[in-house]
């Protein structure tokens, strides 16, 4: 090993490079006050690494972006971990950059000759926010899509060039494939290149001027306590890195990864909310209207940037003690407080808005469903939103929601409750025990049936007999035969007897006592029943359910619905949703 390294050093002189990189005097001694820059470099490397790895599974197209991110999140081994680190890492970047800025400002480290250190730093803060803005759109989920639309919309209100600016930013007249490819290219090529360039300049300037020790120490005191960067400062740096990294990993694991909303849906209503570090700007816009809103939206970043950039030129005295620079410290403090207060206000207002919370809950349920479906069935070529159509009985569910749900589910039902387990053994049993109860025909006028008084095995037998009519393949034939006998003995005063093959439907619909139970709950019977529940052998003139003939439902749709109802019999309530809720916390 030693010889290999010697060989390498003879050719490359790497030892001198490393020694030079690490060999630097920290005037006044190592301090935890100086760790922020190193921590930022560390997070930056973390972002580069996780970003490159995410690109391994990510596809920047309007049809594939959400699907590929959902794949990373829910299918790829450790994908949620890598994506979570990248996303939480962005937040960490903003926080640590803010702290770095505060530390530098309080120490007066931007003063001559370090103005350029400060200016490159402020520019990098701008780049970090640009990273966050462009990265937010890439998953093409509801939040990213709508929040970024607001951001490019703001750009569109710029004076004179607004329209062009917006078209350049979103690449065209509308959000689509080109918006994503453009944001992707900016996020993974342009911004990193710019940032690396500035980091190099920033660090080179830092090496040139050295650290800015705390104010008020004499030159002699500083010189006598000077320590080397390696390992004295580096140790503090790496401890800080480890703390930040541990928090990142902890938050990531604890939250089960960062959230992913449902696929972007331009047809939906979605409450656009930016990432937390843009919340202050978001909040401030609420207080302005019309033209003023545009002025503030565009003006605030310009003013904040201008103030920061101008700071070293305004605060030029030799004294770095904050007490001697109160007005400048005040500007920073007021600015930071304002950002903090606005951010808190924004979250508080959202939390107090019950209707918003309800919509957010619904949006969350949609995302859980979309992700579960994407994992199970894959996403069709039409793109993220099409994943909802992969749900079993998708069309039938829509038909159900449109035509049936209001009368058969909820508190304002006009007919028996139909939900998971409809026509299962336990449903039939409950029905027989209380046919005219609120859950069944109690909400209708057809409430004359008396509860069945059989118990024990006899009740089991009748249940099995009725259950057998559905055509289920797990019927106990022996028990059902016994039930048939009991049925013939007890129920045929009203329901037609099964002694003959077919039921006689030539009777008068107004005299019809009760529906015939042959093949009750089978696909064919249900499709025919849905068409007209008032015809014989169903309810006759007692019927209250609307007719769904061809003017309302095609034959095909009636069968889809009937098949869905049959599927309900053995379906558990949304098993997928419960399962998905377990694997994802947000």
């Amino acid at each position: 090993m030693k010889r290999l390294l010697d060989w390498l050093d003879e050719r490359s002189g790497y030892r001198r490079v490393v020694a030079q990189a690490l060999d630097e005097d920290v005037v006044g001694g190592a301090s935890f006050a100086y760790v922020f820059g190193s921590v930022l470099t560390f997070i930056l490397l973390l972002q580069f690494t996780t970003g490159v790895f995410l690109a391994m599974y990510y596809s920047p197209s309007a049809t594939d972006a959400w699907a590929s991110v959902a794949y990373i999140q829910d299918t790829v081994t450790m994908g949620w971990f890598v994506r979570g680190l990248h996303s939480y890492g962005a937040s960490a970047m903003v926080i640590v950059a803010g702290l770095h800025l505060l530390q530098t400002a309080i120490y007066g480290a931007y003063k001559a000759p370090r103005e350029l250190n400060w200016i490159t730093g402020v520019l990098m803060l701008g780049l970090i926010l640009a990273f966050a803005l462009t990265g937010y759109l890439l998953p093409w989920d509801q939040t990213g899509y709508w929040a970024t639309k607001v951001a490019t919309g703001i750009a569109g209100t710029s004076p004179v060039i607004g329209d062009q600016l917006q078209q350049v930013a979103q690449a065209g007249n509308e959000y689509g494939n080109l918006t994503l490819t453009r944001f992707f290219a900016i996020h993974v090529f342009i911004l990193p290149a710019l940032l690396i360039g500035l980091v190099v300049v920033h660090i080179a300037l830092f090496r040139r001027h050295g650290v800015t020790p705390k104010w008020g120490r004499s030159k002699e005191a500083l010189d006598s306590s000077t320590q080397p960067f390696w390992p004295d400062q580096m140790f503090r740096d790496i401890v800080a890195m480890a703390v930040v990294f541990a928090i990142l990993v902890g938050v990531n694991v604890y939250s089960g990864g960062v959230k992913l909303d449902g696929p972007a849906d331009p047809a939906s209503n979605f409450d656009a909310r930016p990432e937390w570090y843009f919340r202050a700007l978001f909040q401030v816009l609420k207080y302005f209207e019309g033209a003023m809103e545009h002025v503030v939206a565009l003006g605030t970043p310009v003013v904040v940037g201008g103030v920061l950039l101008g700071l070293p030129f305004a605060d030029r005295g030799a004294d770095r003690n904050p007490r001697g620079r109160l007005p400048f410290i005040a500007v920073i403090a007021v600015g930071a407080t304002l950002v903090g207060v606005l951010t808190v206000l924004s979250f508080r207002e959202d939390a107090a808005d019950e209707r918003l919370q309800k919509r957010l809950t619904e949006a969350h349920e949609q995302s859980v469903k979309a992700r579960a479906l994407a994992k199970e069935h894959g996403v069709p070529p039409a793109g993220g939103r099409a994943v909802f159509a992969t749900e079993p009985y998708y069309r039938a569910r829509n038909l159900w929601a449109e035509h049936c749900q209001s009368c058969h589910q909820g508190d304002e039902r006009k007919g028996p409750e139909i939900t998971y387990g409809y026509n299962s053994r336990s449903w039939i049993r409950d029905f027989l025990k209380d046919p005219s109860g609120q859950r069944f025909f109690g909400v209708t006028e057809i409430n004359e049936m008396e509860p069945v008084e059989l118990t024990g095995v006899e009740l089991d037998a009748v249940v099995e007999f009725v259950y057998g009519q559905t055509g289920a393949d797990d019927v106990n034939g022996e028990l059902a035969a016994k039930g048939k006998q009991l049925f013939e003995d007890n129920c045929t005063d009203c329901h037609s007897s099964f002694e003959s093959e077919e039921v006689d439907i030539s009777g008068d619909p107004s005299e019809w006592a009760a529906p015939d139970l042959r093949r009750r709950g089978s696909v064919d019977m249900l499709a025919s029943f849905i068409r007209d529940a008032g015809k014989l052998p169903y309810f006759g003139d007692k019927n209250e359910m609307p007719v769904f003939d061809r003017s309302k439902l095609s034959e095909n749709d009636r069968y889809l619905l009937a098949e869905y109802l049959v599927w309900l019999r053995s379906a558990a309530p949304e098993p997928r949703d419960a399962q998905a809720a377990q694997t994802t916390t947000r």
Partner: protein
Amino acid sequence: MAESDTSRRRFLSIATTAIGGVIGAVLTVPLIRYVFFPVGRRIVSDTADAIDVLDEKALKPGASPTRVEITASGVRNAWGVADDVALGAAWVRKTESGELHALSSVCPHLGCAIDYEPARSVYTCPCHKSAFQIDGKKISGPAKRGLDRLDATVEEGRVKVTWRRFRPDVSEDEKEIES
């Protein structure tokens, strides 16, 4: 003083390196697992179903083979699922005795698509010039085996072919890919 400083710095150096190592490991292990996720998985699905390719009447006993495309529906491709996805192509014909015969168009050498030359009644590969008889047996070239036979049946007047992939550049005995 100087000595205690030296030992303190040695400790700091070691601690710094150790902490760095731990951070690296916590990052590297998940990343390696992440990169290796696709290994051994059916990222792109195919189908074991017999796929309808053409009308049986289109095949005359003893005639030249016909090239057919094999497409499947519900094909998963990582996050996507799509219908009418092309899986590959096959050459089908009927022998003189009327027996159905289907060959994968994937060259058993390195996977190029083979052509049929009606003038010489041979299959040739455009890549490295492997040549095969009409029954698939190898004539010449770098391929280590003959063309791969696919199962083909006739159901209700339609020819159906079952698509399969095999390991390239190995002998007949080693070509199975266990799934």
